[in-house]
């Protein structure tokens, strides 16, 4: 066994051990918590780069935990899709950790710092674990680790966050239970829990009603976790009232991990054949996603609270990703647009939430109408917001533009022209609400009666991650257009049996 094949398990296990260490180290020195957490996440990020390199050059990593062969024991399978999502999640966690340093000191009792960072590290553990695992039940346990940490971390802000967190807990627990029930049905007909094994055993059982119901349950369960349109009701409150750093991490890394789980279940356990065989499942997903794109954008226009507006915008963007998933079965592009938007949306929404939380940090500005003339006082934060908002609208050559371009290609290729109209309409709505904010921030001049805001720039550790993300929005967009990551996308598509349309 090559030493590098140990890395997937080390990414998760060292993170867990670090969480324990933070709890004990915090007893001696509260300041050390942040640094241990930061060092661990940096280390995990470096490991994940090695994993991606190994997967692309050598091949898929199969790792038998405890030395037991897969159907009897638990297996870690790391292919191109896992490695790609793992890097995104750990990169965003790293930036959120850097961002949390000052914002947490400002928002949370000093007494709670130790437990806060312990839970933060456990959240990262859960997210990394969900992504690398190759076992259905193991995924359930790790989903529960990261969800429990997320419930508590949202609630720590107090006040209305408690109710938001409670709603999230009830919805999330029902979602995870549905997922567990789905596993029960699959297990009762296949007798295995390993994803690769189940993929081979299922084709003979596609006609089995239990398998069909299992698909529905798993889709609903993970859809609740990912805040897919009709199941999103917990999401706006949770994003709005959570502490800043937590909003950043759950809106980017956690949403992406849930989407990853959904993609893994749909394409790796049930495969493309299943979703095209019985019902037009892919079409249903596309249509619901199209409704989500429009619904989220319209509700975002109606909001005055900036964070809530961004939360509704997230619902629309989850719709973009799911539209990519829905179209993937009928184009030669396969999952490429959806996978692109997983990265792109993480970059853009991370930057936007960092900026929005920066406004709250300095002057408690939650309302969009209070942001008048802020660009002169907080130039860097506002610039980051501007770049990310332009990118969201689809200003070339930003990442938002690339996503929309590829989604249009995919819709053209599939011959479903209606979705092109949906994409254009949703872009129009996005322009309305983002332009509204930008206009208030940059163009509108303070009137005499407006209250004087005397704010300066947020601390450096808070605006630099935002700026990094904002510039990445454009740099990554150019990289996508050049086509450097396309071999990775092809590897993922061929691994899932996509991209080949008969």
């Amino acid at each position, binding site marked *: 066994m090559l030493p590098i094949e140990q890395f997937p398990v080390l990414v998760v296990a060292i993170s867990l051990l670090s969480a324990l260490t933070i709890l004990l180290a915090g007893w001696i020195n509260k300041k050390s918590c942040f640094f241990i957490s930061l060092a661990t996440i940096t280390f995990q990020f470096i490991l994940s780069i090695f994993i991606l390199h190994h997967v692309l050059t050598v091949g898929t990593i199969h790792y038998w935990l405890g030395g037991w062969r897969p159907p009897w024991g638990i297996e870690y399978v790391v292919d191109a899709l896992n490695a790609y999502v793992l890097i995104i999640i750990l990169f965003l966690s790293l930036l959120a950790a850097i961002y949390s340093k000052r914002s947490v000191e400002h928002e949370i009792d000093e007494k709670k710092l130790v437990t806060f960072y312990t839970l933060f590290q456990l959240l990262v553990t859960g997210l990394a674990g969900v992504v690398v695992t190759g076992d259905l039940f193991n995924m359930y346990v790790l989903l529960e680790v990261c969800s429990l940490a997320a419930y508590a971390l949202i609630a720590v802000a107090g006040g209305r966050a408690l109710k938001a967190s409670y709603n999230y*807990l009830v919805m999330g*627990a029902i979602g995870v239970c549905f997922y567990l029930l789905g596993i029960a049905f699959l297990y009762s007909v296949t007798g295995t829990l390993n994803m690769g094994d189940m993929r081979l055993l299922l084709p003979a059982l596609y006609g089995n009603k239990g398998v069909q119901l299992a698909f529905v349950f798993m889709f609903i369960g993970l859809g609740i976790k990912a805040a897919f349109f009709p199941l999103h009701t917990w999401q706006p409150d949770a994003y709005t009232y959570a502490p800043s750093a937590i909003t950043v991490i759950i809106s980017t890394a956690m949403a992406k991990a849930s989407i990853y789980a959904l993609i893994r279940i749909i394409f790796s356990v049930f495969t493309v054949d299943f979703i095209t065989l019985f019902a037009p499942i892919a079409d249903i997903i596309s249509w619901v996603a199209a409704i989500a794109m429009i619904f989220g954008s319209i509700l975002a226009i109606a909001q005055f609270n900036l964070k809530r507006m961004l939360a509704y915008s997230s619902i629309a963007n989850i719709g973009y990703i799911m539209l990519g998933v829905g179209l993937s079965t009928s184009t030669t592009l396969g999952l490429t647009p959806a996978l692109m938007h997983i990265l792109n949306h993480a970059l853009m929404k991370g930057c936007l939430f960092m900026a929005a939380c920066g406004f709250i940090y300095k002057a408690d500005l939650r309302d969009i109408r209070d942001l008048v003339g802020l660009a002169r006082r907080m130039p860097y934060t506002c610039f980051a917001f501007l770049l990310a908002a332009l990118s969201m609208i689809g200003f070339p050559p930003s990442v938002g533009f690339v996503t929309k371009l590829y989604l249009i290609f995919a819709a053209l290729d599939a011959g479903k022209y209606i979705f092109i109209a949906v994409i254009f309409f949703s872009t129009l709505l996005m322009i309305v609400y983002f332009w509204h904010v930008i206009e208030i921030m940059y163009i509108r001049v303070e009137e005499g009666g407006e209250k004087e805001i005397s704010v300066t720039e947020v601390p450096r550790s808070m605006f630099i991650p935002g700026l990094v993300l904002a510039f990445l929005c454009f740099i990554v967009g150019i990289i996508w257009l050049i086509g450097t990551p396309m071999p990775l996308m092809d590897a993922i598509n061929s691994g899932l049996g996509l991209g080949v349309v008969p």
Partner: protein
Amino acid sequence: MIEWIAQHIVAKYNFWIAIVIMLTGLYATIAKGNLLKKLIGLTIFQTSIFLFYISLSDVGTLAGLGLHYGTAPIVWEEGIHKGYMYVNPLPHVLMLTGIVVSAATTAVGLALVVRLYEEYGTLEEERIMEKEMEIERRGT
């Protein structure tokens, strides 16, 4: 018809009992306005799933009349000769994990309920909503 009932309702009574409990739990989780009752409903819902898993592991056919008897999965040579079979240990293992997860979720939920009660002085969802509205109105 009678055959169908015997085959799918009597022989699969484990499934039906789990389903009835599950639907009770789900109804309570969604419909009840009291936060604590919601949590109780959630626990019932989770427990019914455990019941379904555990019942998958049994190997006794018509216990009493039939040919096989399921016994606890602990190595016991004497029992094997008497015609006993070990029940499937895997669902037990999975559900031990599941029970811990359920207990953990309940603990976090209870902690949230305690905090909510401190904050609003009530556990009825409607009253909490009203108070939130009030706070918002006062805020602006």
